[in-house]
């Protein structure tokens, strides 16, 4: 069962390890990312940051999608973390059972618009968010679970 898909450019860090995992009651974290599996230092650092008593699986995007489709993740209360809106959209498109995406942190970059604290989207990323919403995925913005949920679609419309 998928508890949440979070977009966070820092992937597994304090807010994710301590606050989200606990509040979701997740027992397994899946990091879906094409760089981490081949970047030893980044991979080891993430593995060391794992909260106690939680399973942590790191896969590239293709293998992550395959694992979801194969059903090997079904027995877990799964919390998926990706680093970009593009990766989130790939997952929701390939695996429509994901109905809820949380935007936690998207780094500021040239051409990106700040739509909320810690969330900065390029025009093409805004399109991807709209695409997810059109596919009936709830896309909300929150850094930590106790923050008030902000609807990403509304923020993009209002500012756009």
């Amino acid at each position, binding site marked *: 069962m998928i508890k949440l898909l979070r977009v966070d450019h820092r992937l597994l860090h304090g807010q994710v390890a*301590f*606050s989200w995992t*606990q509040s979701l009651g997740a027992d397994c974290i899946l990091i879906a990312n094409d760089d981490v599996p081949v970047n030893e230092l980044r991979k080891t650092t993430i*593995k*060391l940051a794992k909260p106690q008593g939680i*399973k942590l699986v790191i896969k590239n995007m293709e293998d992550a999608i395959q694992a979801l489709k194969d059903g090997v993740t079904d027995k*877990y209360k799964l919390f998926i973390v990706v680093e970009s809106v593009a990766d989130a959209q790939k997952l929701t498109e390939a695996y429509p059972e994901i109905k809820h995406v949380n935007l936690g942190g998207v780094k500021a970059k040239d051409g990106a618009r700040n739509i909320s604290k810690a969330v900065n989207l390029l025009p093409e990323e805004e399109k991807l968010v709209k695409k997810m919403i059109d596919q009936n995925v709830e896309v909300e913005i929150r*850094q930590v*679970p106790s923050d008030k949920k902000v609807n990403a679609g509304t923020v993009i419309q209002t500012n756009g």
Partner: protein
Amino acid sequence: MRYLLFASHGGLAEGMLDSVEMVTGKHNNIFTISAYKNERDNLSEQLTTVINQLAENDELIIVTDIFGGSVNNECMKLLTDPRIHLIAGLNLPLAIELAIMNGSKASTSQLIENALKNTKETIKYCNHLLRIGVADEEF
């Protein structure tokens, strides 16, 4: 209701709350005392101000910055009050653990024992960890 109080020499306590809230979100049950920042500050009075806000059934977990320091020594005098628990050794993993577990139904002393057990291991020599490595996990 269970309250937390971070108490330190200088600004560590208020900085600790700032960092805890960045990770876990806002809390309305955490006090801080950043002692001795102003000449006129009186630690004993600052502690009394916090304790006077407690109801009879409330509990207060005080976490001070260093065992044997004057802040902790001053807090030791409060331990005749059964509502007060005192921990020395304020650090972020411990502070987060206590803040998160604060809603738990476990007894306060049990909660503190668990938090200490879980967070004592979080002080690490990271160079060494990289040499050891960690195994991959699969579904």
